[in-house]
């Protein structure tokens, strides 16, 4: 038995704090409104899409580990809890070994910027409360603490394609019997310095934040299920392979078996950034969902939203199989395939 199923999914995005909110925003097919983010030293603001405040405030935010945590941890936890559903309650007794893979690109940038700013002003008074929250694996740690899990827990850093690498890693852990279930989370948080950094490459890209989580198991719940069918190789951008070549190679690796009818791509309406992926999939004749056009460039979170949009569409019976294409910022092109199954 080497099948891997998506047991649940969760999302926090500029559309709101649930997969349903993401689904509704995608159904409206209109870019979500942007807001202005002040950038120190500039007269003009940066335009971004951010996660709206949670209302009501989720109960987990009062957990001792999460009261002072930064938004990225809150997003990751909220998405993970939605993905886990009822299984979350059974974790603390140790009956289920839950692996955790959290993927980030910018990571805990709010506290990192704040702590470095304090350091520059006077390192002697920099806050010891802030520093630990700067560490890449702080969100994964908070999530494990909240769930009461002690199983293997990795934080992966890379460009957005890393989320799909995380799915393959989780599948490996499950098939090896190292864990009984595994969460794969992609998460980012908004900060002017991230938006500023992206603006160095294009002024047309609107950064956003949030998280997406997929809960993988070897077994299914009752009724129709969604299966992870394939994750391609990670096709690196290097001196030997351009981004365009990598995108084409990733696409070529995906099987046409099962006739995927949906493509969840990473196009965002910025020609220079979309060019390589658009070329690789130029002859795609099925349906397309481009979550970034609606939700913005959420980096690692956006790659997770792409997967969630695909899984959600399959779960609701709109398609039998779906491809996800992630042509990352500066590391890799990679793709995945999901399929609906009756067993």
């Amino acid at each position, binding site marked *: 038995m080497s099948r891997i199923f998506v047991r649940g999914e969760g999302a926090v995005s500029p559309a709101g704090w649930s997969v349903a909110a993401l689904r509704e925003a995608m159904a409206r097919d209109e870019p979500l409104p942007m807001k202005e983010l002040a950038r120190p030293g500039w007269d003009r603001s940066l335009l971004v899409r951010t996660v709206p405040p949670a209302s009501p405030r989720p109960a987990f935010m009062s957990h001792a580990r999460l009261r002072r945590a930064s938004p990225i941890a809150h997003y990751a936890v909220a998405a993970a809890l939605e993905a886990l559903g009822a299984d979350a309650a059974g974790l603390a007794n140790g009956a289920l070994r839950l692996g955790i893979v959290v993927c980030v*690109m910018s990571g805990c940038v709010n506290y990192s910027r704040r702590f470095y700013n304090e350091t520059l002003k006077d390192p002697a008074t920099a806050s010891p409360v802030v520093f*630990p929250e700067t560490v890449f694996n702080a969100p994964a740690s908070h999530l494990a603490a909240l769930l009461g899990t002690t199983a293997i827990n990795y934080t992966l850093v890379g460009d957005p394609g890393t989320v799909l690498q995380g799915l393959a890693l989780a599948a490996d852990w499950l098939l090896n019997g190292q864990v009984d279930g595994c969460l794969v989370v992609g998460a980012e948080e908004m900060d002017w310095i991230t938006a500023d950094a992206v603006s160095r490459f294009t002024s047309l890209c609107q950064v956003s934040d949030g998280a997406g989580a997929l809960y993988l198991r070897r077994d299914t719940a009752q009724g129709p299920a969604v299966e992870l069918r394939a994750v391609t190789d990670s096709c690196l951008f290097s001196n030997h392979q351009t981004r365009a070549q990598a995108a084409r190679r990733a696409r070529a690796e995906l099987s046409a078996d099962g006739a995927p009818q949906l493509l969840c791509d990473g196009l965002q309406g910025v020609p220079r950034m979309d060019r390589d992926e658009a070329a690789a999939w130029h002859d795609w004749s099925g349906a397309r969902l481009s979550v970034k056009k609606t939700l913005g460039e959420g980096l690692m979170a956006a790659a997770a939203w792409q997967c969630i949009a695909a899984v959600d569409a399959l779960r609701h019976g709109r398609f039998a199989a779906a491809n996800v294409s992630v042509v990352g910022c500066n590391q890799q092109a990679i793709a995945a395939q999901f399929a609906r199954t009756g067993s």
Partner: protein
Amino acid sequence: MLFPVPHKAEFSRVVITGAGVITALGQGYKVNAEGFRSGRVAMRRVTLFDVSRQRVKIAAEADLPPELPRTSLREHQIHRMDRAARLLLLAAHEAWQQAGWTPSPDLPLVLGTTSGGMSLGQDYYRQAINAPQSRRQQATRVLHYQAQRQGLDLADAFGFHGPITIIANACASGANAIGHAWELVRRGRAQRVLTGGYDALSHLVFAGFDSLQALSPTQCRPFDAHRDGLALGEGAAVLTLETLEYARRRHAEILGELVGYGAATDSHHLTQPHPNGDAAFASMTAAGASARIAPDQIGYINAHGTGTPLNDGAEAAAINRWAGARAGSLPVSSTKFSIGHLLGGAGAVEALVCLMALRGQWLPPTSTLETPEPACAFPIVRAPTDAKLDYALSNSFGFGGANATLILRRWA
């Protein structure tokens, strides 16, 4: 394809055929082995950034050579590499040369780091604040700050194509990376994997540990009853791992064997281990199970041993519990007094220390130890010691409760 992959019924044995390292002790295997064996302390006043307002002013800085070794990297790529990337490349080059590897399209790279090119991130922020209208070099800093860029530099330097996996599990990152690489090889996902850990000293991280008052204001003394903190360092270690069959087929010199890996999560506190060392115990137990060996077969433990009161106490409890009756005669030391805590590089360098000890049949001392912590049921190696040992175990623990253990075997 990363998934699905053929399931392999039997595990492959995983051997080490190349090992490269750079620390404050120097560049290269030999000088580091001599330093660890003699217990040399390589601390000095920090010169990389201003520490005049810090509580602690010393660390273990590495000396980088003026030139990087010749690789396939282009001049502009070399020019853009930051300190962390250079440390990593130097260690990788030594390992690659020693292994005699040739480029391959499907060679995975698994790295551990906590902060990648943090110094570039700091430069970016300072310019963004002090000269907000200036775009000079900012795009380059954005790209090269990210850890995947340092991985891509290695891929370009040696002509392989990945995939690249970067594990950022705080101070266990390097051990997790090597452990993950070991899993890839032994389960047949790859015949060989380039793996290791690295981190360069940075002002942000130094100030962070200083703010926590985790840095020793005197001298780093792991497992000392009067220990008062850790010392930071920088460096990198890289290993070439391959299946025994592959290494034999190409008549490679085998340096050692990696036989076990365990990982566990401590959810007690973001920065403090559970006082009983529960996750450390679980991690050592898992590593022993995967290696199929018992504690009485272990000849040496390179402890995480940071020198902080909380870490060493919890680790001592975990080792006592895990080793049981064997604890009373199981030599343990920590080498962080010598080269500092290398954070994402620590687990990789300390795995290499175990390899050195196994190959040389000696035990690296904790030479700054004065009064052993009474909670330690095990003997702490305090002076250069020759020994006969077949297995060595390395512990790495990190913020966020990341715990990882590696077990290495002597190749004879």
